[in-house]
């Protein structure tokens, strides 16, 4: 069983997000970058599946050399080998095209991604990869089991879940519940140093969207404290002052 896991390097979830004064660029100084938490779920599941099915897990990342630390962490968690497409990601279409191109040249039984990255939150890369490869994509996948050549996945929908079956290959976007996060052990960390990391140059992709600038949410005014004894007035106060209920 050959599994491809797509990973991205994102600001730590505790990081404060800051931009240059003209709001054109993200300020990465002082920010720790981590393996995207949803990708880590996908990777954990892939490692489990590969272990029980005598398979391999290749992680793929689109990024410059600064993402190598995150790739090594994925190898320490249990990936067999890694590929880095040597380019700074421009947008989700660019990333998906690079990964789909690699996947076409190196066939896989399944491609696992996180359901979204915690920086751009688009949920687009898994679906675009699937569309480019003309295979199914089960996004928001909360569970995944394999029985022979058939996969069964639970996918979150409004007010519940869908149980979906598919043949291979397919793409899934891992959500919480699919697997427990794995903490690399010392053996994994040591072996990650010697596992293969192949660097591949990107293919050309037409640009369809362009980041112009960033913006921050409007700060709220100071909190208005309400005494416990006045809690019964809360909804009247909200209605009168905010007119939203």
């Amino acid at each position: 069983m050959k599994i491809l896991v797509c990973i991205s390097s994102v600001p730590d979830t505790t990081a404060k997000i800051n931009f240059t004064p003209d709001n054109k660029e993200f300020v990465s100084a002082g920010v720790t970058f981590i393996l995207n938490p949803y990708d880590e779920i996908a990777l954990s599941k892939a490692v489990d599946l590969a272990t029980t099915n005598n398979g391999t897990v290749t992680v793929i990342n689109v990024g410059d050399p600064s993402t190598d630390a995150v790739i090594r962490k994925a190898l320490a968690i249990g990936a067999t080998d890694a590929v880095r497409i040597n380019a700074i990601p421009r947008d989700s279409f660019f990333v998906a095209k690079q990964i789909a191109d690699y996947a076409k040249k190196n066939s896989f039984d399944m491609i696992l991604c996180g359901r979204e990255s915690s920086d751009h939150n688009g949920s687009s890369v898994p679906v675009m990869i699937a569309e480019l490869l003309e295979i199914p994509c089960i996004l928001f996948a909360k569970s995944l089991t394999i029985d022979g050549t058939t996969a069964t996945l639970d996918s979150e929908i409004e007010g519940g879940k869908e149980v979906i079956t598919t043949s291979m290959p397919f793409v899934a976007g891992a959500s919480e519940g699919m697997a427990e996060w794995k903490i690399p052990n010392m053996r994994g960390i040591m072996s990650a140093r010697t596992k293969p990391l192949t660097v591949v140059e990107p293919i050309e992709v037409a640009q369809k969207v362009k980041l112009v600038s960033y913006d921050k949410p409007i700060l709220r005014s100071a909190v208005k404290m309400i005494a416990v004894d006045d809690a019964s007035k809360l909804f009247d106060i909200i209605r009168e002052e905010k007119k939203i209920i």
Partner: protein
Amino acid sequence: MSVLVYIENAEGTFRKSAFEAISYASAIAAKLGKQLVALSIGNVSNDELAKAGQYGATKVLNASGDKLNTPNTQAYSSVIAAAAKAENAEVIVLSASFAGKTIAPRVSIKLDAGLAENVVSLPVMDGAFTVKKGSFSGKAYSIIEMLAGVKVISMMPNSYKVVPSAQSAQVTAFDFIPDAKDFTATVKERVKAGNTISLPEAELVVSAGRGMKGPENWGMIEELAKVLGAATACSKPVSDAGWRPHSEHVGQTGIAISPNLYIAVGISGAIQHLAGVSSSKVIVVVNKDPEAPFFKAADYGIVGDAFEVVPKLIEAAKAFKASQN
């Protein structure tokens, strides 16, 4: 040229987010001077289809039939792309619902279009076509210029108001049968959760954290939500502990929400939690610790024990609801 909006139904009834999407698309169509075409897929009654006209669509395409009556995002993407081509659509709008997030990227590839996801306001169309979308899990926004001729936009639920229109729509069948490869994945079963109010679409959300001390104490949270007609949610430690399902976890690694009112009980307000709920229009925080960081991000705060405050809020909600009737 036209603007096409995909209107999603749940078991034959259009979702609230579908009417938001039509209203949003209607504003774009008016600005561009184009016709607004709505597309419904699946088994929807004529009465329900006619509702699309009440929010600005002049034409409603109805794609139904055995193969399309069970939701299938891959097949639906093909139908939407085919309708967009047939209507020569310049802008395609969808709701960023769970299904919409799986459909929009496929449609963008099929149409060789640009894609902007989780858009929170109307595009600025002053020569360039720019949109504002949520980024960094609610900690910021990105302003994106869409360069391609055809543009696909998925809009965040609750980010645009429903605007009724005096329009009436002509309903037309749209006959399109997707390719067999679109049906490789099959929905075997749909399972409803206990709380049927969808978190991303909910206008009111009551959420609770570890301050509730255990899952056995969630009854009062559910009761408050029920009285208000709200969805229930929880913090990450609560879902990690198995007190509540992962589907209720709101925050940076859970569901990002933007309800009108978010009531947080016994949640301290870690930066990851705030990220996913900061788009809420009004935030009320109940916590016994006056130093809880969440108070700094709230509109209203009550310092007190959840077991004392929540019953008061339930009574207050009942009285408030009674005064509305």
